[in-house]
C-alpha cells in the first residue's frame, strides 16, 4: 500500500513544475516521437536503413554505446574524491551520480539493442536460457558487467531514497560496502568495453594496449561534466548545498584526466607516425583523409579543437574559477568526447577495411533519429528520477507528508 502511495505521489510530482519544466518535457516528447519514427523504419526494413555496410559493420550506434558506458563509469567514480576530500554533501553526490549511472547504462544497453539485427533473439545471450559464450566472448563479459553494474547502482540509490522517504536510517554499512564495490566495477565496465575492441587483432586501429587507459581518461572528462552542470542547477533551484570549492575541485580533477588523455594520445600518435607502418592509414584517414576521402576530417579536428580549448579553460585557475568560462569548458569537453567516441573511435577502425577497401560512412537519418530517440528517452527517465530524488531529499516529500495530506483531505470531507 505504501509503495502504491509512493508511485502515485512520484507520478504526480513528475507532472508538476514550472513553465520551463513543461517546455522541457514537451521538447523531449517531440524528439521521442520524431526519433521513434526513424526507428520504426529500421525495424520494418532492417539495418539497411542505416549507412552501415559489410565494410563498416559497426558505427554510430556502437560509438554512442561506448560513450554512454564512459558516462556511467565516471558518474560513480566521482564518489572517490567526494569521499577523500570529505565534501559535505557526499550522500547527495552519490545519489545523483548513481542515478546518472543507472540512466546511462540503460541507454547504452538500448544502443546495443537497436544495433543488433535480431533484437527479439536477445535472450540467446542469457546464461541458462540461451547459450552465453562465457568467458570467451568479450561481448558476453560486457553484457554481464553492465547488467551487474546496473543492478548494484539501482539497489544502492533506491535503498538510500527509500530510507529517506520512509524516514528511516539507511544501512550505512551495506551502502558503503556496495558503493566501494561499484567503484572498481565502474573502472571494470569501461575497461571491458575497451577490451571489446582491443581484442581484435584484425583491426590495428584498436589493437593498442593504450585503448583501455585512454577510454578511462576520456570518460573522466565527459562523465563529471554532466554532474558539474547538474550540481549548479540543483544549487540554484533546491536547497542542495555544494561549495564552490568542491565544484572547482571536480574541475581540477578533470584537468588531470584531460592531461593524462592528451599524454596517452600523443604517445599513441608518436608510435604510429614515427614507425609509419601500414597501420598508420587509419589515423591518416581520421586526421587528414585518404585521397579524396576526407569525410571524418572535420569531425576529428572539431573534437580536437573543442577538447583543447576546454583543456586551456580548465587549466588556467582564473578561467576555471569563473563560472561562465567553466561552463563553456564543460560543454566543450562533453561535446569533444562525444564526437571522439561517437565517430572518431569506431569508424577509422573499419576504414580502410580488412581488405584495404574504403567505404565512406557517415550516419544516416535513421541512425540519427534512433539515437535521438534513445537520448531523449534517457533524459526523460533521468529527469523523472532526479525530480523524485530532489523532492525526497530537499522538499520533504516523504511518507509522513503524504499521510498528513491524506488526513487533511479526510477531515475536510
Amino acid at each position, binding site marked *: 500500500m505504501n509503495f502504491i502511495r509512493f508511485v502515485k505521489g512520484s507520478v504526480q510530482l513528475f507532472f508538476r513544475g514550472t513553465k520551463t519544466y513543461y517546455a522541457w518535457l514537451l521538447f523531449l516528447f517531440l524528439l521521442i516521437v520524431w526519433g521513434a519514427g526513424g526507428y520504426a523504419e529500421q525495424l520494418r*526494413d*532492417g*539495418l*539497411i536503413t*542505416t549507412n*552501415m*555496410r*559489410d*565494410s563498416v*559493420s*559497426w558505427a554510430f550506434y556502437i560509438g554512442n554505446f561506448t560513450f554512454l558506458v564512459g558516462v556511467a563509469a565516471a558518474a560513480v567514480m566521482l564518489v572517490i574524491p567526494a569521499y577523500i576530500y570529505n565534501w559535505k554533501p557526499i550522500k547527495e553526490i552519490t545519489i545523483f551520480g548513481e542515478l546518472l549511472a543507472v540512466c546511462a547504462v540503460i541507454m547504452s544497453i538500448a544502443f*546495443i539493442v537497436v*544495433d*543488433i*539485427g*535480431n*533484437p*527479439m*533473439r*536477445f535472450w*540467446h*545471450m542469457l546464461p541458462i536460457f*540461451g*547459450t*552465453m*559464450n562465457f568467458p*570467451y*566472448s*568479450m*561481448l*558476453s563479459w560486457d*553484457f554481464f558487467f553492465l547488467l551487474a553494474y546496473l543492478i548494484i547502482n539501482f539497489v544502492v540509490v533506491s535503498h538510500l531514497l527509500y530510507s529517506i522517504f520512509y524516514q528511516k536510517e539507511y544501512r550505512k554499512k551495506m551502502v558503503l560496502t556496495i558503493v566501494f564495490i561499484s567503484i572498481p566495477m565502474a573502472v571494470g565496465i569501461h575497461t571491458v568495453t575497451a577490451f*571489446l*575492441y582491443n*581484442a*581484435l*587483432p*584484425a*583491426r590495428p586501429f584498436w589493437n593498442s594496449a593504450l585503448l583501455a587507459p585512454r577510454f578511462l581518461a576520456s570518460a573522466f572528462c565527459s562523465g563529471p561534466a554532466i554532474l558539474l552542470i547538474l550540481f549548479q542547477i540543483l544549487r540554484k533551484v533546491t536547497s542542495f548545498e555544494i561549495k564552490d570549492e568542491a565544484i572547482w575541485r571536480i574541475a581540477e580533477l578533470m584537468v588531470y584526466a584531460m592531461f593524462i588523455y592528451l599524454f596517452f594520445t600523443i604517445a599513441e600518435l608518436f608510435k604510429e607516425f614515427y614507425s609509419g607502418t*601500414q597501420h598508420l*592509414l587509419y589515423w591518416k584517414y581520421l586526421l587528414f583523409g585518404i585521397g579524396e576521402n576526407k569525410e571524418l576530417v572535420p569531425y576529428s579536428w572539431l573534437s580536437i579543437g573543442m577538447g583543447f580549448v576546454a583543456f586551456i579553460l580548465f587549466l588556467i585557475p582564473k578561467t576555471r574559477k569563473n563560472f561562465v568560462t567553466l561552463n563553456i569548458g564543460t560543454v566543450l569537453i562533453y561535446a569533444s568526447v562525444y564526437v571522439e567516441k561517437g565517430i572518431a573511435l569506431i569508424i577509422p*577502425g*573499419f576504414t*580502410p*577495411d*580488412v*581488405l*584495404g*577497401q574504403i567505404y565512406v560512412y557517415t550516419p544516416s537519418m535513421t541512425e540519427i533519429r534512433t539515437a535521438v530517440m534513445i537520448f531523449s528517452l534517457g533524459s526523460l527517465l533521468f529527469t523523472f528520477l532526479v525530480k523524485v530524488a530532489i523532492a525526497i531529499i530537499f522538499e520533504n516529500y516523504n511518507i509522513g507528508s503524504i499521510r498528513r495530506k491524506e488526513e487533511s483531505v479526510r477531515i475536510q470531507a
Partner: protein
Amino acid sequence: MKKSNSRRSFLKNISLASASALALSGCSLAELEKFFQKNFRTLSEKERKQLIEDLEAEYKQKYHKEFHLSDKPAIDGTLFGYALDISRCIGCRKCVYACVEENNQSREPQIHWIQVLQMEKEKGIDFVHSDVHYNPETVPEEGHFYLPVQCQQCRTPQCTTVCPVKATWQEPDGIVVVDYNWCIGCRYCMAACPYGARHFNWGKPEIPEEEINTEMHYLGNRPRMKGVVEKCTFCIQRVREGRYPACVEVCPVGARKFGNLLDPNSEIRYILENKRVLVLKEELNTQPKFYYFFGV
C-alpha cells in the same frame, strides 16, 4: 459497486481482445515455437528431424518447389583444405557468381561470399593498393594480378571466439558454420574477421524463385533471413556428399584446388608437398586452411 463491476468487465474485454489479436496477428503457435527454438547444437536427434521437416515445408510454401534440406554431420577422417593458384587466376569473377547461385545468396541487396581483388604486379600482395571494383572490358589487365578472397576456414578462427551466443563454430571437418536461426546479428564476428569473409543481411534477402538451389544444408545454403550473418562454407552441402565446391568446378583456368588434408593421396596434399604455399596475414596466427600458391 457498479464501478468495480465495469472495471472487471473492462479487464475481461481487454484480455479477450488481446488474446484474439494475438491469434489473428501472425503471432501463431508456429512462430512462437520458432522464437523459442534452441541452438542447433543443443537439439536432440528428434528435434532436429522435426526442425528439418518444418523448414522444408516452409521453403516449399514460399518458393513452390521441393527442397532437400540436409543436416549431414562431418565425415570422420576429413579435414577440408583449399589451394588457389595465383599465377593462373585471371580475375573473371565466374567463381563469385557461381557461388551466389549455388549458395542462395541474396541478389537484392547483393551479397558476394567471394571478393576478387585486383592487385598491382609491382606491389605484390598489398591490400591497401588493391581494388575490388575493377571493371574493364576484358581481364586480365596489363600489369595486374588477381587475388580472390573468401572465408579462409582458419584453424584458430577469431570470429567464433567472439560470438556472444555460440551461433557460429568450427565443425570437426574444419568448416566454420553459422546457425542462422540462432545468430542475433551483433556483427562482432565481422569486426573480428581479418579477411572480410563474413557478410550481413542488411535488408530482406531476395532470391528469384526460378534461381533457387533446392539442394541445401542446414548449416550452409538454406535461405537466410534479414539481420543475420552468413559466410562461405566450402559448399558444405556438396563437399559432405563427396563433390567439389561450386567455385572449384566453375573456374575456367583450373586455379582452384580442393581436397581432404588428412588424405595423403589428395591433390591438396600434393600441392602442399610440391609447391610453395602462403597464407594471408599469417602474423595474426589464424592458421588458415585456405592456401595460395604459384603453380607456374
